[in-house]
């Protein structure tokens, strides 16, 4: 079996940091429900592309850093991220063969699950949202997924991240 040599792993961290920045970018209140879940999308990409490199532990750390940056309850995004990462790591072989639009639908389902867990924790602290509202980020992410996928794929090949 071919051994995996770590190469340019800093790039994974860089993309996550950029995603964190995009996720706290100020947006007008009216369209703030349409903000895609950048961090989750980037993490899903890496868990599909390099399942041997990123795992549950890195999902945990990514989720916690999103919690820290977005001032949410500690563990809110962590829990959601770990669950989504687990599903991704189970099914990456099948998902890789999908067409972009099929992947987009699958991203919608993944981020729908993600948003469900995020909102479950929200309801513990007294914030509640309607399902039609809290699924909007999943829709936005699914629409953005083909672009994110192409961009990250391009960069991964250029920098030979493994």
């Amino acid at each position, binding site marked *: 079996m071919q051994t995996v040599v770590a190469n340019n792993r800093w790039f994974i961290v860089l993309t996550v940091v950029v995603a*964190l*920045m995009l*996720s*706290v*970018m*100020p*947006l*007008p*209140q009216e369209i*703030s*429900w349409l*903000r895609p879940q950048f961090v989750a999308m980037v993490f899903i990409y890496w868990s599909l592309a390099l399942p041997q490199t990123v795992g549950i532990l890195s999902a945990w750390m990514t989720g916690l850093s999103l919690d*820290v*940056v*977005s*001032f*949410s*309850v*500690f*563990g*809110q995004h*962590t*829990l959601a991220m770990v669950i989504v990462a687990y599903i991704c790591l189970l099914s990456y072989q099948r998902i890789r063969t999908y067409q972009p639009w099929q992947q987009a639908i699958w991203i919608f389902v993944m981020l729908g699950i993600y948003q469900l867990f995020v909102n479950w*924790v*929200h309801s*513990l*602290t*007294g*914030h*509640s*949202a309607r399902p039609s*509202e809290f699924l909007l980020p999943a829709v936005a992410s699914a629409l953005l997924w083909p672009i994110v996928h192409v961009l990250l794929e391009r960069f991964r090949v250029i920098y030979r991240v493994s």
Partner: protein
Amino acid sequence: MTIILVDVFTPYLKPVKAKLSAVAAPFYWVTSIPSRISEWGQVNIVTRDQLVEENRALKEQLLIHQRKLQGMAAVVTENVRLRELMNSAEMVAEQVLVAEMIGVSSDPLVHKVVINKGSRDNVYVGQPLLDAHGLMGQVVEVGPISSQVLLITDSTHALPVEVNRNGVRAIVEGTGDLYRLELRHVSNTVDIKEGDLLVSSGLGQRFPRGYPVGRVLEVIHDPGRPFASIRVEPMAQLNRSRHVLLVFRDTTTPQSTTTAELTDEP
């Protein structure tokens, strides 16, 4: 999972969160760069005519405010004299610190903002925040150079107010909508009308007395319900104020247990 429960139901993680908010501050600083640049552009790239025009408008405004202030001086001395007559406690002198908003919570459900002042500037938890038009919220977490402010429209926030016209007391709650507050548990016979100004009553020991909070938009009396439902529009421009004021009290009152924050929502 465990970490969620620990964070929601116990205060053990508070110090850790305060430390980690220092990590989060650079992110907000970086993402606020575009708006800073545009603000810089608005300040620096203007024609002379615009400056002259602005100067004229400001001078006019200053004149109007000064005229109001002249009246105020007499009113203040009269008020102090009346209070002396009644032997009541003197008014607490308040100091303010101008802060700048550097970030907004990315979660649409949570109405929190980040300001660029922290424990280095003696900001403390529970400190009220104002803008030029009214009360905005209270500080909930303090880091070294930044702190988080919970806005009054957050659905977990409530504060005691009184009607400016007749002194009727009530509790105003956030709804999760940036443009809407609600008065809770006000019976149908209470004298509150459309257009009434609500000011903070200072009863929760958290907010200073007499700052404008909101204006009553509509009062709905539904005979089928025990309480009237009253919609209030916040006075502060919660979504566009950039420069905000932190209010310090000279006399440091001990934090009372009756906080202005409701944590359990029915």
